[in-house]
């Protein structure tokens, strides 16, 4: 084979930093309870940093058991005395206001999201923030239309919802939780992830400015202990959790002898299947986005690749070509494709798996990109020649690491794709329509992307099979878990 393409060129992209001078961030954030920012009872705070340079951005109040009590009580009061008495259409109008205000402050949100979480500004600006605003818009419209979503039923709200969200899409996850909960007439106590509290705090400011009645949404910060207090609290009627399968199982056990409603959105190890009749260059792009979008910190990331053996060589070459053009670096640079890993523990976990993969005998490939000295970074990585029994094929790594295998027949691909306790998503790449529908029928996953990947829309239900969780977020189906039908 002739020599390869040289992606290192004399023409480099100069730094193109997003301006941060216009954002308004406080040095300290208190708990948002009952419509106000109040001091934590035990006067405990924790620091939140920028993972790209490890610098402290702000201090955030840590909610103790007593603070959670207060928050739940204010949510309960607001539910019984205020929110349930407001007409559905008026409820919708509050949610429309929140959506609009997010749009108006979109750039600020995007910058803070990248600063606090490490994701590239291009992603927070073009994907996270617009999707979050759109989610509020979509559900705002359902508030006064619930009877149409469930004909012959009289949908009723549940009460107080305890919601715990992860660090990979902080604002978007807050939107996915709060919007449907409010539209269905419930009130909320939300706990953002420990490493990414800031955009939720800005959202709390917007909630204040929207004049949403006090206590309808409460936002409290903390770690696993704070989350446990919310889950255990007797006045929380419904729990919504997005995070690791491990913690999801713990929550399921904790509330086993209660009547609390529960939805879980957990981990995944999605398979992407590429057939030899796929639109190949677009499939390459889809695989790249599937695993390197958001540094691979995505529950539905396409972290396993099954390529039909006949096109293996050319496909891997193109995959590597594309990886050579990915820029790892400062999340606030507009040209950055892969940002910082969210935290030191997460980086350690990824590196742990990189070691295991090599020990297990898979062939590792990483590009020769430059990475900054400070901060948490991982180069985009391929593991070639893996097999089903490798730990890097079975276990969720949650980083920019793709494990690759070949397959020969359709049935083999289906079997291998389903051979996992997870079932969140899957990708199918082929030009043949009937093959797409056949595979869509056979793959045991809650979201199937055909000739595309990582596509989200407020109207499109999202959620998993098996240990990836239960319940759906988005669309009409996303309403069911916030209603008593």
């Amino acid at each position, binding site marked *: *084979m*002739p020599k390869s*393409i*040289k*992606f*290192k*060129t*004399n*023409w*480099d*992209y*100069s*730094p*193109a930093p997003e301006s941060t001078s216009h954002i308004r961030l406080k040095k300290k954030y208190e708990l948002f309870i009952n419509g106000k920012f109040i001091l934590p009872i035990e006067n405990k705070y924790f620091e939140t940093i920028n993972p790209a340079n490890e610098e402290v951005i702000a201090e955030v109040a840590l909610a103790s058991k007593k603070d959670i009590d207060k928050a739940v009580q204010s949510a309960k009061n607001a539910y019984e005395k205020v929110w349930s008495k407001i007409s559905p259409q008026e409820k919708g109008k509050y949610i429309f206001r929140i959506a609009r205000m997010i749009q108006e402050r979109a750039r600020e949100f995007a910058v803070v999201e990248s600063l606090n979480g490490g994701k590239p500004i*291009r992603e927070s600006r*073009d994907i996270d923030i617009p999707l979050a605003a759109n989610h509020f818009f979509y559900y705002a419209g359902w508030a006064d239309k619930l009877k149409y979503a469930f004909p012959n039923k009289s949908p009723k709200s549940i009460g107080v919802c305890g919601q715990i969200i992860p660090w990979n899409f902080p604002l978007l996850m807050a939107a996915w939780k709060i919007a449907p909960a409010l539209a269905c007439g419930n009130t909320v106590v939300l706990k953002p992830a420990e490493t990414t509290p800031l955009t939720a705090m800005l959202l709390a400011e917007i909630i204040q400015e929207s004049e949403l009645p006090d206590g309808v949404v409460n936002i409290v910060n903390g770690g696993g202990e704070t989350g446990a207090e919310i889950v255990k609290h007797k006045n929380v009627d419904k729990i919504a959790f997005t995070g690791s399968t491990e913690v999801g199982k713990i929550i399921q056990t904790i509330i086993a002898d209660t009547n609390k409603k529960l939805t879980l959105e957990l981990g995944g190890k999605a398979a992407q299947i590429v057939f*030899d*009749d*796929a*639109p*190949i*260059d*677009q*499939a390459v*792009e*889809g695989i790249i986005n599937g695993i390197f979008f958001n540094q691979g910190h995505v529950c539905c990331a396409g972290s396993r690749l099954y390529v039909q053996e*006949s*096109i293996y060589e*050319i496909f891997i*070459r193109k995959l590597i*070509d594309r990886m050579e*053009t990915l820029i790892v670096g400062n999340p606030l640079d*507009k*040209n950055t494709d892969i940002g910082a890993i969210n935290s030191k523990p997460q980086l350690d976990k990824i590196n742990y798996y990189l070691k295991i993969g090599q020990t297990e005998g898979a062939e590792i490939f990483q590009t020769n990109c430059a990475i900054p000295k400070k901060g948490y970074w991982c180069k985009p990585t391929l593991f070639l020649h893996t097999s089903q029994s490798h730990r890097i094929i079975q276990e969720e790594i949650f980083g920019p690491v793709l494990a690759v295998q070949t397959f020969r027949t359709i049935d083999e691909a289906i079997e291998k794709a389903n051979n996992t306790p997870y079932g969140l998503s899957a990708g199918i790449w082929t*030009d043949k329509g009937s093959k797409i529908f056949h595979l869509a029928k056979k793959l045991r996953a809650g979201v199937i992307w055909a*000739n*595309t990947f990582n596509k989200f829309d407020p109207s499109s239900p999202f959620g998993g099979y098996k240990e990836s969780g239960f319940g759906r977020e988005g669309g009409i189906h996303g309403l069911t878990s916030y209603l008593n039908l």
Partner: protein
Amino acid sequence: MKFNILNQFAIDKIGVDERVARFSSRSIKSKSKVEGLKLALSMIDLTTLEGSDTIGKVRQLCFKAMHLHDAMANLPTVAAVCVYPAMVRYAKHELKNTNIKVASVATAFPSGQSSTKIIIEETKLAVGEGADEVDMVISRGKFLAGEYEFVSDEIKTIKDICGKIHLKVILETGELDSLDMIRHASILAMQSGADFIKTSTGKIQPASTMQFTLVMLEAIRDYFYSTGKIIGMKPAGGISNSKTALQYLVMLKETLGEDWMTPKLFRFGASRLANDILMQLVKEEKGNYQSLDYFSKD
């Protein structure tokens, strides 16, 4: 026989749109902007292909090609001027002491609706008048009717006449039904002897788009991987401002890399682009927004 990617034409348009959007979201600033703009300038084929062209018009175009904006030092020249066969000798005369090439269209440009006999004669005329490069059109009618061998034979015939003179094959992407068809035509053209593949005549809408160009660049890459041959690419028409030109360069860099970032292998078929690039270069140097009044036309 091994799987041959040159037999694979399936393209997903939405996927192409998404890849193009990524190129367009690249932010090219300061030093890279100036370097990129100068590179783009050096890749322009300054073009006049009007029914109303005269010797005088062509002379003025050639002068502009040689003196883009004398007020600014260290500017590259454009790569070539592109004219009808009847104007080749006059362009050659004006440009005789420069490195600027004279490209001539041929083969019943722009429609391609003529007999093989006539397009052969026209090519011989262009070559005889001294053209350094020939831009031919394919027979879109024949291609859409599935007569691929006919189209291939025409290209081979014209290439034979050109000999060492480099041949660009215009696909007229705006008339080809789908991206799949553009890939097919690209591969067919390269297999038939094209030195460059070119998007369009610039005479119909749409002319060049980033989507068409991306599909063709990826076809060139596959051809290179399969055969080792290095083919050039020219998007023509529809690239009227610097921002767009820089996005094309991003696309070129991230698809074909360093070896193709040269006027030897990449050209812009454009007329208004040059002045827009000059305005941007002066703005980068001086710091204030410019006006077309300060840059010579033609």
